[in-house]
């Protein structure tokens, strides 16, 4: 039996389930308790689990993420909410130099089973400093795992794996997806990291995406189908580890690939994936790998400019056509 629920509900239900099951799970973050959470992910959690397990923190990412790392080292399983991932930059040293490296530094004696979660990417008119996509930054560092759920089922499956693993997980949600509905399987539906999902089969071109861009890619595939182009859509689900095998397997059949990301183009996830395809499937490519990305500017505040700066379904359709030498 699978129930239809929202991305937000899937987050709430999975957190509750693991808090009920495992008393070591504690939540930390700004306004997650009394205020019920900026995006209401943790509404009613304080009354249900009490202030020892649902901790409202001061406005100091460096402080509370550092504290959470200490908790994780000593046996708790903290889940930190960042109001947006942009604020995680304040704690970059804790995340990149401590959380990511402690297992390595200690020769495997110390683990940091920490989940940091919150919305990543552009919202609606949150302006330049609150609209960034940081997945490529975090996926760059060994020692971190980077998950980007696109659907409610992804949320539940990836969060279960994050909450049961032994390494720090960068869990990048998307505010525009909190209301998106989808089927969530019952039972233990943990999705292993590094396993992409083929959301739609096709033989002509492979569209590779993650997070909100998966929905754009699916819409583009629908559009392309009306032109007689069968696009395969891959939802990567995690960038680190990256499921290169599913990508390459698909491109070997379609001979064409379009990688979609919300980030700026230079040095992004799409560049990494395009390079991987060149390395693993060069002789099977019939066209250069196309990238569809956000515009290379700080996010504008004006709504019309913001929309122009974000990838659009038609950009994906156009890129797919280019790989097929159709205009």
């Amino acid at each position, binding site marked *: 039996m699978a129930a239809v629920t929202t991305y937000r509900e899937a987050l709430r239900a999975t957190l509750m389930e693991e808090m009920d099951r495992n008393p070591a799970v504690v939540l930390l973050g700004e306004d997650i308790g009394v205020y019920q959470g900026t995006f209401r992910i943790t509404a009613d959690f304080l009354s249900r689990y009490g202030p020892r397990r649902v901790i409202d923190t001061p406005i100091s990412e460096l402080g509370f993420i550092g504290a959470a790392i200490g908790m994780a080292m000593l046996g708790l399983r903290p889940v930190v909410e960042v109001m947006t991932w942009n604020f995680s930059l304040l704690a970059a040293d804790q995340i990149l130099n401590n959380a990511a490296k402690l297992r390595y530094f200690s020769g495997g004696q110390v683990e940091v089973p920490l989940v940091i979660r919150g919305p990543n990417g552009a919202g609606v008119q949150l302006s330049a400093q609150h609209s960034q996509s940081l997945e490529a930054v975090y996926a760059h560092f060994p020692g971190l795992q980077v998950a980007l759920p696109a659907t409610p089922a992804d949320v539940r499956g990836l969060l279960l794996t994050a909450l049961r693993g032994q390494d720090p997980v960068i869990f990048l949600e998307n505010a525009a997806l909190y209301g998106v509905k989808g089927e969530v399987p019952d039972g233990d539906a943990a999705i292993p990291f590094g396993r992409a999902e083929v959301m739609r089969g096709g033989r002509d071109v492979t569209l590779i995406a993650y997070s909100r861009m998966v929905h754009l890619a699916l819409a583009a595939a629908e559009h392309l189908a009306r032109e007689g182009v069968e696009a395969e859509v891959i939802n990567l689900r995690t960038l680190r580890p990256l499921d290169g095998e599913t990508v390459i397997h698909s491109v070997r059949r379609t001979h064409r690939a379009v990688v979609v990301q919300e980030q700026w183009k230079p040095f992004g996830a799409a560049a990494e994936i395009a390079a991987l395809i060149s390395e693993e499937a060069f*002789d099977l490519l019939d066209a250069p790998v196309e990238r569809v990305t956000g515009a290379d500017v700080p996010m504008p505040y004006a709504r019309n400019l913001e929309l122009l700066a974000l990838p659009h379904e038609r950009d994906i359709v156009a890129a797919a056509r280019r790989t097929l030498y159709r205009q």
Partner: protein
Amino acid sequence: MAEVIMPKMGDAMTEGKVLRWIKQQGEAVQVGEALAEIETDKVNVELPADEAGVLAQILVPEGQTVPVGQPIAIIARPGEAAGEAPSAPERPLAAAAPPAPTRAAPKEAPQRVPPEERIKASPLARRLAREHGIDLAEVQGTGPEGRITKEDVEAHLARRAAAAPAPAAPAPIPAAVPPVTEEVPLSRMRRTIARRMSESKQQAPHFYVTVEIRMDEALSVRRQLNEALGDKVVSVNDLIMRAAALALRAYPNLNASFSGEAIRRHGEVHLGFALALPEGLIVPVIRHCDRKGVVEIAREAADLAERARQGRLRPEELQDATFTVSNLGMFEVESFTAIINPPQAAILALGSAQPRPVAEGATVRVAHVMKATLSADHRVTDGAEAARYLGEVRRLLENPVLLVADLSAGEAPPLRRRDNT
């Protein structure tokens, strides 16, 4: 300096492909001399130079398609800088300007392999070519800047398979093509045919009228004419074209086009005849066909057909037809229905003249009977008019003396519509 632009050859032409440069960079050209061969929707034409001088720069490589009006080359007139220094043709525009700083070298500068030797192909296309033993130089690339793609290699393989020798002589091993479904990219001509024929069938409500025509007399006249001329000059189709054109004078609604608001009855009879080429269908036009004699029509048709096969027709030789004749008689076809070639109002489809038993009074004898089917646009004309027109075509072909008589020179049309019949 004079720019050579992609010319507009025909109303429907929006872009053209440079098939081949006949003149090379640095070569002298005279006015009217062919510079390049251009592929349009239907024909390949030679592009003559409008200016004399030196072909200073080729801007569009062979195989590339560009919009009408885009410069494709530059001619330096006599006395201009590039004309004096044809040995440095790659920078003709810089000649008049101060030398560029060395750091801003043209991006093509460090090229080691001459451009014409470097074959652009996708990695997959290279791999397929390698696996099938194909020389990429033989493959026509359709991608950007002539890049050879998977589809191009597959199309090449399909053509090679089609051209392979009969099974009696076993083909060499690399010619083995797996029996897979091939996607053959649309040629420009195929694309045009697809578009125009779909438009016609969707927009013009076709109706069809068929008559049988006894061709014994016409065949006999043809034989006599050719004996008199000492050669096989006149074909059955030439007689049919003459008949179709003469009959159109009396039925102007069939020599017309539908504009949406009005019916345009053309003052002249320009007869198109469908001609099958290996790459598709083409319709050369015999202008003022109703005013030309059978032999003149025959010579003109033969010349047009021969040059069509060589790809040497001029665009205007494919334009302005007011009516079309399509003959599949040479394939022993009994009858067929053709699709109207828009914006024309009708097309005449002819089968072969086959010996058949026909009743004549109480006796049966063998006659050569040809079925002629007119497809007409019901927006323009009706069945009765189509039937009368076909009746006139039949009358002319069954009384072929009317076709060879000099009936076209007179002022008054000798053939009048007989509305009371």
